[in-house]
């Protein structure tokens, strides 16, 4: 089991540590509800150093990156970030990731911790003669996510970056003489930044952000809050809404599958009519739908829950899942979730569950 450079900080802050994607990570500090509130009202700081950083460069880098992404990266300007999916030949999702254009032929891909090694091996073995260098430099960098309405103000007290930095754009900044990538991105639905720093400067940056945010009420936040916030915001998580046997169209990610360029998996996705449909739902009772629980339409099993939690924002249980497309279930419909043998009614709704202060 691997530890991030911030492990000692988490222990000192009283975090509960759990295994996640091969890493020992903080699941919570003060408590998931308090951390959720910190992010929605003020600011929360997340250790996301476990995520993977893969650099791609070389004369054919842009064409190569485009050939392994469902989204079309060719038109991106340096300084832009794009959400994308990487598929295998069958169109199934290997991972979902953020693509950073560093320069004309220089790219950074930020991938999920649990998939990083597998992604890297797959990328390195699918260059198909392209003149590129693919480097897994995950160990060289730390990544912090500072999220919440006060996040940008707190970050700018520690590092200098353009105030007008737009959503899904990044800027280069410096911290204690080291280069930092400041990216206006996140996984909570709130405004915020993600900061990539050399591994050896990560602890100092964490400490500086915690100190700068003290007055504003910054809170260190764990994986439990991260999961809760991303479900409320309707974001997919690999291992839940995305899996090795789920394609991005089924996963409701058609908006990042661009058929105007060639990419691995395109043939399989062309003309694909998903047999399952991603849905979101709320429950009126207090029982929480959990991953794997059956979904029923008219009393007949028709799908499965992929993510579920209690939403402190809505004060009710919420869930995301897949349901047979031929059932024609759409927002407003009533279905049922089998929660430990009880069929409890659930109302289908649109994603996201809440519209927080997303900065765009």
């Amino acid at each position, binding site marked *: 089991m691997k530890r991030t450079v911030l492990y000692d900080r988490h222990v000192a802050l009283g975090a509960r540590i759990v295994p996640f994607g091969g890493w020992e990570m903080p*699941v*919570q500090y003060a*408590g998931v*509800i308090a951390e959720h509130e910190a992010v929605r009202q003020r600011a929360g700081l997340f250790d996301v150093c476990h995520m993977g950083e893969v650099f791609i460069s070389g004369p054919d880098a842009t064409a190569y990156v485009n050939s392994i992404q469902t989204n079309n990266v060719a038109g991106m300007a340096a300084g832009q970030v794009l959400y994308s999916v990487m598929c295998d030949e069958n169109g199934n999702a290997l991972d979902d990731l953020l693509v950073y254009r560093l320069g004309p032929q220089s790219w950074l891909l930020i991938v999920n911790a649990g998939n990083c090694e597998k992604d890297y091996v797959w990328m390195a073995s699918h260059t198909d003669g392209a003149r590129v260098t693919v480097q897994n430099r995950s160990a060289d960098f730390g990544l912090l996510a500072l999220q919440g309405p006060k996040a940008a103000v707190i970050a700018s007290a520690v590092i200098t970056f353009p105030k007008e930095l737009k959503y899904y754009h990044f800027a280069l900044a410096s911290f204690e003489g080291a280069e930092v990538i400041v990216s206006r991105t996140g996984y909570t639905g709130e405004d915020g930044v993600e900061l990539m720093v050399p591994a050896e400067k990560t602890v100092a940056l964490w400490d500086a952000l915690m100190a700068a945010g003290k007055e504003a009420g910054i809170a260190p936040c764990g994986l439990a809050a991260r*999961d809760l916030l991303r479900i409320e915001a309707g974001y997919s998580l690999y291992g839940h809404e995305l899996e090795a046997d789920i394609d991005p169209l089924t996963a409701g990610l058609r908006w990042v599958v661009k058929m105007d360029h060639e990419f691995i998996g395109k043939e399989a996705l062309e003309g694909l009519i998903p047999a399952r449909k991603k849905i979101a739902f709320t429950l009126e009772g*207090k*029982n929480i739908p959990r991953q794997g629980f059956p979904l029923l339409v008219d009393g007949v099993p028709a799908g499965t829950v992929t993510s579920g*939690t209690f939403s402190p924002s809505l004060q009710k249980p919420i869930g995301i899942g897949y349901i047979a497309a031929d059932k024609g279930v759409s927002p407003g419909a009533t279905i049922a979730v089998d929660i*430990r043998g009880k069929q409890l009614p659930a109302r289908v709704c649109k994603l996201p569950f809440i519209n927080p202060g997303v900065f765009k």
Partner: protein
Amino acid sequence: MEYPDGLSYTKDHEWALEEEGVVTIGITDYAQSELGDVVFVELPEEGTVIKAGEPFGVVESVKSVSDLYCPVSGEVLEVNHDLEGEPELVNSSCYDAGWMMKIAVSNKKELGELLSAEQYADYIKSLK
């Protein structure tokens, strides 16, 4: 973690306190800490008869769900209705305001089979 003397404990992380034939039941500090923020406690109806070791309810936290197991046999006299509106009492006051139910114990001998505070603390250490 606190495990007060004078309470009896189960390996399923419930505590029991007997006073004149009435046993008050809740979950331990270890249990509430492992669960994280509790958002719902499902408890039996008053009058239900439950056997030792059987499930009597469910506790849902944001992150997970856990069955509750009855430490002793008997009839449910009272459940803590405060938990309907304030389930977080299980986290903030697991041995006091966060109690779950009171049972008229039918066989006091069962209390003798439960763990002491010291035995329970040793058991928790053995889990780590």
